[in-house]
């Protein structure tokens, strides 16, 4: 006998997400899961008729957490349509913003959006600050803000806060849940970093704003280039960027990574049991473009590719034509009995079927505003873990070293990565890999500028036709597709990370990444679904992204004809 549990809203994410689980009452194991998006804005309609040069600015408002990435991809889609590439300075500036944003995104996600799934703030109140200092030193030679006086101050501050009776964001948490595995001292260490990062994350955001004008929603990208030339030619601004990233990287090194090691050790059993592992296919479109060649020939900082069935011996090329979106369990219909359509041929005919009388999802039919994107008919996971697995399989040495060092330290096999814990650790390791690369990005810029190159913009002639762009955002694979007619946007489509991961079942009843990761999860108390929330957060959901592409009135959408 299974009991249904509705978890809505899922908090500490971007946007509005519902998860429904069916739990076997005899053993408290999740038998079935449904992921549903419950909000809609209609971006696709809003994009139509606009100046193609403006689409990046519009697209950026898809999401304020993945800020910049939709801006960049939207601008790139128009650049592709116009046939314009970037001068080196402009490419480097975009990558500097990409790196700062990724560092900001990952650290903010871990501490502010995810950490409370791992540490128990109430337990931290019982910690002995002296013991906490000793533990912190077991995980790093010079741990971040780990003095006895600092821990004492944090503990007193938290105690005063709790005793005030106004618990703010901590109210109603699953405190004392049996699946919290850390000791009071260990909880205090992460609680302390939770507070530290509220200040530290400002630095990476500020770094991105130096060349982006502001963050969230930077404003310095234009079709064909960048406007922040004056900042990029100013040694003081470049140094400011570099030092802000350096300080952020220092926190990653001395707080974030040690905390992940602590979590990996204490939650090792869950990891080795494969809890939250889910799908067996991992995809990346390539992170940070390093040259101006067409996408399929381009070098990326982290490579594009596809690993199927966790077989690391082969990395498959990603073929953009094999992407298709299904609507069997989404609130849409396709005309002519089609079951799967390439985004270029996409239709969006809404068919809202509503909820059951008790407010639950009608999972036998449509149950989400998100479509089900599939690659060659298969569901795939995207995100930091997918990027690292693809890079590892592709023989990327920097990624192999960091991943192997981590599993060697903990003493676990590679299968460790195929879990909720693995997904969370992978995000942190990627943060380090990106931060380590920043000095080289900065040097590339300073050397190019020193060589006398002050170009930040390439001329173009606007033209009609299709354009598309593929690449990686922190949360995973992001592609934007548009067609231009009579100088205006005729159609706009985006297939985004959380659409891949949060999708409902497809026509063959294959689950999306969230759903697959929840099924078989043992629960200690379905009324306090800590395990579910932890696994969902490990994907870093971004729901506004996932549901921006919908068109409510179902009118005919112009079709793409594009050679890719």
């Amino acid at each position: 006998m299974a009991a249904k549990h509705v978890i809505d809203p899922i908090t500490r994410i971007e946007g509005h997400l519902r998860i429904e689980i069916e739990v076997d009452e005899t053993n408290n194991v999740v038998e079935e899961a449904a992921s549903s998006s419950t909000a809609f804005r209609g971006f696709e309609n809003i994009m139509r008729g606009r100046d193609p040069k403006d689409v990046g600015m519009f697209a950026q408002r898809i999401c304020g957490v993945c800020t910049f990435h939709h801006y960049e991809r939207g601008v790139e889609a128009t650049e592709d349509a116009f046939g314009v590439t970037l001068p080196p300075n402009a490419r480097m500036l975009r990558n500097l913003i990409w790196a700062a944003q990724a560092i900001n995104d990952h650290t903010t996600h871990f501490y502010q959006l995810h950490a409370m799934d791992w540490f128990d703030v109430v337990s931290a109140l019982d910690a002995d600050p002296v013991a906490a200092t000793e533990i912190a030193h077991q995980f790093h030679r010079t741990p971040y803000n780990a003095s006895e006086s600092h821990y004492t101050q944090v503990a007193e501050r938290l105690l005063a806060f709790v005793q005030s009776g106004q618990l703010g964001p901590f109210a109603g948490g699953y405190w004392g849940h049996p699946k919290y595995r850390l000791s009071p001292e260990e909880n205090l260490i992460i609680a302390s970093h939770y507070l530290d990062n509220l200040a530290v994350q400002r630095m990476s955001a500020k770094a991105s704003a130096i060349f982006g004008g502001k963050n969230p929603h930077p404003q310095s990208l234009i079709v064909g280039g960048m406007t922040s030339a004056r900042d990029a030619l100013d040694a003081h601004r470049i140094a400011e960027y570099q030092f802000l990233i350096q300080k952020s990287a220092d926190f990653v090194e001395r707080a974030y990574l040690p905390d992940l090691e602590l979590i990996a050790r204490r939650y090792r059993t869950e990891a080795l049991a494969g809890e939250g592992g889910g799908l067996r296919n991992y995809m990346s479109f390539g992170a940070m473009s390093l040259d101006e060649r067409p996408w399929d020939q381009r070098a990326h900082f982290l490579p594009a590719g596809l690993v199927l069935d966790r077989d690391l011996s082969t990395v498959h090329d990603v073929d953009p034509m094999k992407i298709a979106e299904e609507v069997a369990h989404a609130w849409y219909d396709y005309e002519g009995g089609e079951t799967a359509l390439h985004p270029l041929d996409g239709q969006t005919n809404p068919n809202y079927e509503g909820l059951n009388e008790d407010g639950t999802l009608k999972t036998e039919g449509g149950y989400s505003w998100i479509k089900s994107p599939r690659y060659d008919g298969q569901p795939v996971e995207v995100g930091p873990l997918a990027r690292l697995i693809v890079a590892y399989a592709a023989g990327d040495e920097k990624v192999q070293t960091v991943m192997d060092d981590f599993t060697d330290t903990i003493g676990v096999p590679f299968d460790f990565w195929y879990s909720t814990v693995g997904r969370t650790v992978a995000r942190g390791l990627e943060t380090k890999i990106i931060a380590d690369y920043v000095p080289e990005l900065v040097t590339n810029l300073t050397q190019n500028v020193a060589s006398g190159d002050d170009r930040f913009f390439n001329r173009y002639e606007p033209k009609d036709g299709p354009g598309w762009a593929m690449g990686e955002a922190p949360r995973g694979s992001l592609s934007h597709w548009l067609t231009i007619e009579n100088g205006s946007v005729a159609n706009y489509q985006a297939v985004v990370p959380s659409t891949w991961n949060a999708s409902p079942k497809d026509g063959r009843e294959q689950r999306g990444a969230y759903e697959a990761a929840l099924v078989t999860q043992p629960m200690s108390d379905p009324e306090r679904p800590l395990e579910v929330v932890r696994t969902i957060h490990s994907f870093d959901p971004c729901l506004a992204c996932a549901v921006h592409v919908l068109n409510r009135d179902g009118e005919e959408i112009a079709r793409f004809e594009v050679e890719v």
Partner: protein
Amino acid sequence: MTTARRHAGPDPTHHDLEARTQEHYEWLAAEADKNLDRLEAQDPVHDVTLDDVLKRRGLSRRDFLKMSAVMTATLGLPPMFDLRVARAQEVATRLPVIWQELQSCSGNSMALIRNANPGTDELLLDLISLEYAEILMAPSGQAAEDVLADAIERYDGQYIAVFEGSVPVAEDGGYLTIGPTGETGVHKVEHISRHAAAVIAAGTCSAYGGIPAARPNPTTAMGVADFLGQRGIGTPVVNLPACPVSSTNVVGTILEYAMFGRLPSLDAYGRPLWAYQDRIHDKCERRGHFDAGEFVEGWTDIEGLKAGLCLFKVGCKGPMAYNNCGVVRYNEGASWPIMAGHGCIGCSEPGFWDTLTPFEVPLAGRVYSTPFGTDADADTIGTVALGAAAAGVAIHAGATALKAATESRSDAKKEQ
């Protein structure tokens, strides 16, 4: 709107300085007493008494009064405030804030957590009580719903409701549902606002509808103030537009209420004057170049970009936009769009996605319509020749006159 546009105070025409000072202190003391009476009349929000707190810190009541006297002096107030400061500490409850996301991108939440001085930790632990905020709160699902219901009941009529994102009213609100029972966003806004002391619409979407309300507005998205007006809910609303909102403006507005117990004076579009009274153009660091007729002529004009010339010709909407971006900038003063060479897109103005686009096209040379309306002033703006310095003067005069006109119209309306 019940907010007074000008705060009452001592008669500024009084010429005797000493008497004026005394009069000012007496007025301030009376204001403080009123606020303290109000706070003391509230139900206690927690079971911990001042004595508990003092005991925990190893202090006697005498010590506490001494400390209050020191703090009074630190604040530069005369001894008559000693007991009032002590009283304020005794009743101090951090201001309850409920932050509800609607049709949003969470960009305003992200902006908030990037505020400095106070940083987010001070804000959360010391200054306000963020009772409900989906982006930060520990619980999900029913536990999160319970936290919200509890906060609304506990602080009925006392909390600040902050909304982020627009309200979709089409399809009976079906384009946004939140919570285990599938409650609509429409219902959430009604319920939370009805029980709030005041509402802050953070960001352009919640202030004016923003991008979801841009043509063709597929979900009939509305700003919160318009929505509440339609539903006859009279809770005062402060609009804090920009995409996303400047954290300085949202924290400043919350703190103004927390410290002084009042809302700021507003302009015709419901924006606080302290933040939005100046045009971007008037406080722009590149204004000198505009007046001198020195423009970035196009994106290939690298020398113009390097020299930081005026961005009007590459589409800057600074002459049409009101906010303090140029003064406080973003991300701890790191930059702002004009500093980054892009130009302003006018993101604090109602309807800017439709009226101020295409972003790279200067406003001169086409008719500038809505949200100000196509009146004579707007025509002046629309028909000035592009490029001549004289055009700039016309634009300046036109927009300023326009602003004055809308404000005086709005004032007249309020006084009726």
